[in-house]
């Protein structure tokens, strides 16, 4: 299978902190790939680097055979990669309709408004609220708006950063429902999640990232039941915990 996104030996970080220490991942066309891992493993950094917010210090990012590492976000968007940031990335003081319009900012054709109408047809909830400022939407509705906004660019790949953070369980199912629906139309998803179980159940393939490196990869179900994965989250469960206060150095004077 030819990969849609292919990341090889990626290194990146902030200032002098290297966060990604050689990451290899790939996403096939219309595939839902999930990356899980504890806080600070570098999941968000990976998405930011693929999207062009961060410049890789080493390694390659290839989209459909073309290197995109180091390109600016607008160029990455034009090539069909969208990015939905962590937290709510709606524009709170603009209306739902304007949020959708701006989703198509990089488009230069004149059919944007038609497409916005079509998207609103698909999401009646948003149509109802199209004149409201986005800040009044509920958490689930905001996620819906973000996904709807992405559709205006007809992306090949959508990068989702913790799409279910802070959502009620029923809404989480809705979000993944939308993801699967869009996947059926040929859109691939690369999802970063901390809520591992839900994400893994919804994944075609999954990676576990730990301290800037991929520790495991496999099918979603495989990863879900891998004992080592739980260890990555919950610490040294495999080995008995050492008693606190075991051989420490001398106390400081004073």
């Amino acid at each position, binding site marked *: 299978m030819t990969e849609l996104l292919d990341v090889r030996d990626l290194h990146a970080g902030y200032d002098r902190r290297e966060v990604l220490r050689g990451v290899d991942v790939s996403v096939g066309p219309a595939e839902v790939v999930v990356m899980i891992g504890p806080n600070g493993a570098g999941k968000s950094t990976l998405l930011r680097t693929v*999207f062009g*917010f961060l410049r890789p210090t080493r390694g390659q990012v290839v989209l459909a055979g073309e290197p995109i590492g180091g390109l600016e*976000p*607008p160029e990455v*968007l*034009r090539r069909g990669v969208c*990015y*939905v*940031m962590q937290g709510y*990335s*709606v*524009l*709170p*003081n*603009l209306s739902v309709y*304007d949020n959708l*319009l*701006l*989703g198509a*900012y*990089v488009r230069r054709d004149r059919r944007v408004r038609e497409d916005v109408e079509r998207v609103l047809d698909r999401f009646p909830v948003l149509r109802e609220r199209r004149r409201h400022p986005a800040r009044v939407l509920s958490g689930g509705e905001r996620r819906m708006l973000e996904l709807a*906004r992405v559709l205006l660019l007809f992306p090949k790949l959508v990068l989702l950063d913790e799409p279910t953070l802070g959502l009620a369980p029923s809404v989480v199912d809705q979000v993944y429902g939308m993801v699967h629906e869009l996947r059926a139309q040929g859109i691939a998803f690369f999802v970063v999640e901390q809520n591992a179980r839900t994400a893994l159940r919804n994944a075609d393939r999954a990676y576990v990232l730990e301290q800037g490196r991929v520790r495991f990869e496999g099918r979603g179900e495989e990863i879900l039941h891998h004992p080592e994965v739980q260890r990555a989250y919950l610490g040294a469960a495999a080995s008995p915990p050492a008693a606190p206060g075991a051989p420490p150095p001398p106390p400081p004077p004073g």
Partner: protein
Amino acid sequence: MELVWHAAVSGAVLGLVYALVSLGLSLIWGVMDVVNLAHAEYLMLAMYATYWLWALGKVDPLAAVPVVVPVFFGFGWLTYQLLVRRIVRAPVAAQIFATFGLLFVLRYAAFAAFGPNVYGVWRLGEGTVSVLGVPVATSKAAAGVVSLAAFLGLSAFLRFTKAGKALQAAAQSREVALSLGIPVDRMYALSWGIGIASVALAGALLIPFYQVSPTIGDAFLLVAFASVVLGGFGRVDGALVGGLCIGLLENLLGTLLSPTLKLLFVFAVFVLMLLVRPQGLLGEPGR
């Protein structure tokens, strides 16, 4: 009582122009969180430009607007590209020093070019129009009307055009805007263009009844800051409300108490506002 009413009406008209002066300051502040200390120097330069067009080219100040405003739009854009772009994400101190230095470059450039003398446009036999029963000089009334039109125009631009919406997006969240492919940098330049163009418009409107000299910037900067702090920064309506309040306050207190110390009142309001409600009348609480 009639005196008070007169003062209120002419204060409101003046307040509209003040609002226009503070609009650009507020816009730039709100969009990119940079306070342009040199803001009022552009007002001074625009007043000179309009004056010289009138003195040398016999162009009526109002007729000069279509020339002055675009030129200053370019001036603002250029200021962003050459200077401000380098300090957008610099420490606050660097931003403060940069626009403070700019203030002096512009002020003393005007000083070197035009000298310390005071210039004004003199039009004999100017008529008055009645505004709410109060006679107001035509040029002042025109200034009020054009200011109001500029506010409506800018609001429309921000609300109904793609560029205006993108500008709002850049102001609300730089990151989200970038993730949508909005060229935030160009939006910042645009906000400088618009901000400086609007203060230049205020300059062209002021020159028929306000004389220009290289140092008038200080007083206007104070008025603009007070308006922005009063109305809440980064908001078009805030600038309007703030400017109107300051204009009214200045004229009313100047009439009722002492005309010479009216700026002191403005300052007192400014400090009081910072103490009591730093987010401004229309701003939402919390930083």
